[in-house]
């Protein structure tokens, strides 16, 4: 059974551009969370989606948005990219929203130049 799948693996964008990152959860998992990990720091919570609804939001600007599709996959969108958005973006899936167990994908490395 496949784990959490994220695409693309690596991405280079220019300041001001827009980016879309994708995540496919483990089969049967209905919740997807997104985290941003800047080099040298721990991951920071961006969003959680459960049953296609936003259930939690971290302290990120409105340039960050996400959605969850009927098949429970998810997209994270970031508009007007800044150099400071360069980071590893991690997706985690769980069976339910308030789960104790999260499985993380390998992440998307975004570089903004």
């Amino acid at each position, binding site marked *: 059974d496949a784990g959490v799948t994220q695409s693309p693996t690596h991405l280079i964008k220019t300041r001001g551009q827009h980016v879309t990152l994708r995540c496919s959860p483990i089969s049967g998992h209905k919740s997807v969370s997104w985290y941003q990990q800047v080099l040298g720091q721990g991951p920071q919570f961006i969003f*959680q989606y459960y049953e296609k609804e936003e259930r*939690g939001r971290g302290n990120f600007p409105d340039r960050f948005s996400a959605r969850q599709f009927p098949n429970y996959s998810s997209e994270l969108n970031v508009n007007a990219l800044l150099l400071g958005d360069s980071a590893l973006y991690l997706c985690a899936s769980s069976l339910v929203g308030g789960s104790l*167990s999260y499985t993380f994908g390998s992440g998307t490395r975004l570089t903004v130049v």
Partner: protein
Amino acid sequence: SQQGEEDPQALSIQEGENATMNCSYKTSINNLQWYRQNSGRGLVHLILIRSNEREKHSGRLRVTLDTSKKSSSLLITASRAADTASYFCATDDEGGTSYGKLTFGQGTILTVHP
């Protein structure tokens, strides 16, 4: 913002030695988890300890939790070169406003020399 701090920031030991990492946090929690990350890749869940538990074991891992001091420790016994990675604690905050949110520490970089 980061929930807590991990200590030390970096730890270098020889194979066969024990490695101890500490984590402090600020708010009341439901549970605390430890994750491992190799070379900036995805996080791997190691162990979870609930707020009403004081100690838990899993293979070569031993985790303790002291809710009065808001701190936890992760002990890896008989370390191996393959244990080289970054280790993070993460808390699931009691009464948190963000559903399903994990708050991570800064991490400890462990290097085990063969």
